[in-house]
């Protein structure tokens, strides 16, 4: 089974975030980065499938040079090789652009299964995997909690709202977006980290993928990013108890929206 794991490097959780001067994204110079959390679970699922079914795990990540750290982490944990999509033109892609570049890279790979995280911790759009499946003409399923291989097909458990689950049988090849917390991710062992140094890591730029800037033009853009503004306001109600109570209920219901 050939499994591709799409993996993104995102700002480390609990980083002290500051906005860039244009107010359109965060300042990336003084923070550290880590593998997007759901992608860690996706990688772990892929490695377990490889262990039970045999085959190969290929990591694919789009990002600047620093994303190599995330790629090396995946290789250290046991992925066999990596594709790093890196090009100055990839700097500000939206989910569609990322999916399009990945689709080009992965078409050539002809994987049996592609797994991605459910969403990225930075954008939180939960779109890349789904768009990638559409672009590649693959069936997909999202928020996956478990994967069972049944010959040339798979049965997956999908999380719905309110504690409900859905079980879906799918043919392969397919794409799944993986929910966080579904397995216990392994550590990268020290020997794994050493071994990763010798695993193939292929860099692919825009031209290698046969794409132009126009193909990747963002369909959405950030106009303003801001830190939630804290406001505290005190209001005194005048009048008798009954009136004041009615006013209070009205405010709580319609303004504060806590009732």
């Amino acid at each position, binding site marked *: 089974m050939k499994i591709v794991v799409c993996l993104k490097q995102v700002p480390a959780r609990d980083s002290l975030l500051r906005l860039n001067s244009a107010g359109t994204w965060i300042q990336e110079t003084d923070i550290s980065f880590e593998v997007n959390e759901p992608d860690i679970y996706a990688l772990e699922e892929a490695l377990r499938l490889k262990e039970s079914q045999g085959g190969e795990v290929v990591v694919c990540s789009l990002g600047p040079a620093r994303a190599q750290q995330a790629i090396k982490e995946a290789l250290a944990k046991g992925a066999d090789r990596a594709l790093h999509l890196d090009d100055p033109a990839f700097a500000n892609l939206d989910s569609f652009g990322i999916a399009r570049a990945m689709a080009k890279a992965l078409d050539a790979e002809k994987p049996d299964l592609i797994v991605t995280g459910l969403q990225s911790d930075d954008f939180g759009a939960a779109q890349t995997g789904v768009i990638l499946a559409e672009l590649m003409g693959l069936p997909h399923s999202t928020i996956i909690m478990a994967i069972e291989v049944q010959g040339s097909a798979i049965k997956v458990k999908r999380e719905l709202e309110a504690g409900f689950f859905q079980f879906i049988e799918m043919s392969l090849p397919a794409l799944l977006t993986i929910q966080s917390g579904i397995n216990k991710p392994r550590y990268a062992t020290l020997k794994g980290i050493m071994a*990763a140094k010798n695993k193939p890591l292929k860099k692919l730029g825009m031209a290698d993928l046969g794409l132009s800037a126009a193909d990747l033009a963002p369909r959405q853009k950030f106009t303003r990013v801001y830190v939630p503004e804290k406001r505290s306001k005190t209001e005194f109600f005048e009048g008798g108890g009954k009136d004041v109570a009615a006013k209070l209920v009205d405010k709580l219901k319609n303004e504060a929206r806590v009732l």
Partner: protein
Amino acid sequence: MFPFHGVDFLEFDSLLSDEERLVRQTVREFVDKEVLPGIEEWNREAKFPKHLVPMMAELGFFGANLTGYGCAEMSNVEYGLIMQELERGDSGLRSFVSVQGALVMYPIHAYGSDEQKEKWLPAMQQGTAIGCFGLTEPDFGSNPGGMRTRARKDGDDFILNGEKAWITSGTIADVAVVWARTEEGIRGFLVEKGTPGFTSKDIKGKWSLRASVTSTLALQDVRVPASAMLPCAKGLKAPLSCLTQARYGIGWGAVGAAMACYNEALEYAKTRKQFDDKPIAAHQLIQAKLADMITEITKGQLLALQVGRLKDKGRAEPVHVSMLKRNNVKIALDIARAARDILGANGVADEYPIFRHMCNLESVFTYEGTHNIHTLAIGETVTGIPAYR
């Protein structure tokens, strides 16, 4: 305890490779998940967390900077980062790993016969065998050259007599590297657990390194074959070279303990409010302490990294390692004490890690060459005049 996200004031991380950061991340995650949830209890009960040995072995922590025999073949900087993160968890746990790798596997690797290497190194790397290092004696600590333990040749065998004190992992060890005086000077012997006449007993009532085993070893007419002697370890230089290895790791480890205390004090100071609903971090006296802490940690990191890079090039001198150990353990101890103060009464409770680190660091200050002894080593180097006697 507050979550830890690393301490990096001066873009220290930009001096590290991807692999170095990954190694640190593995150990950091291991400590967060496997060590910190249990450490206060183990410390309270003076219990060594032996159950962590197989996992540490699998991750590659034992003899991580040695080559072959299943070892991870890390660089010295990577090895240092492992020690830093382990000691951010607990100095006792780091001590165990230091002894296993730098004080037992290293001398076997550097001075042992092929037979000794084959027998012990893979097993120790896999954590199925545990080692201890017996140099210190009740009457000889800073001056091990005066040791009384003797090994007398008897036919093809040696007969060992003497006593070793303050031996980390003594009672849990499968093999002890025992340093003894022979007719041809100080030599090292691999003495296996259960050898008749060889006994060990734990030292009770420690206020420090409580999650690590510390023991005395007694050798009474212990007969070992000549093949138990480390063939290439001749003279006091050999055990001292082991100490240089372990001490190098301690220089990094102390930074980890300091980071843990600093992180705790900083987060606490930002949330603890006194006088006019102001966080104590808003007071200049507290800020001065925090500024000193982060400055010393940053200097300590750079010192450790430079010694590590020199060691990787084969150019680290023992006195460089003395400076690293002396400085970093001292600043860690100062930081632990200042952090303890910032936490007020909470600083003495084991709900927070600081008092434990502070007590641990007292041992670290003393073992592997006391602070004073390293002062003398540096003094001798710069003046050319030894002042030990």
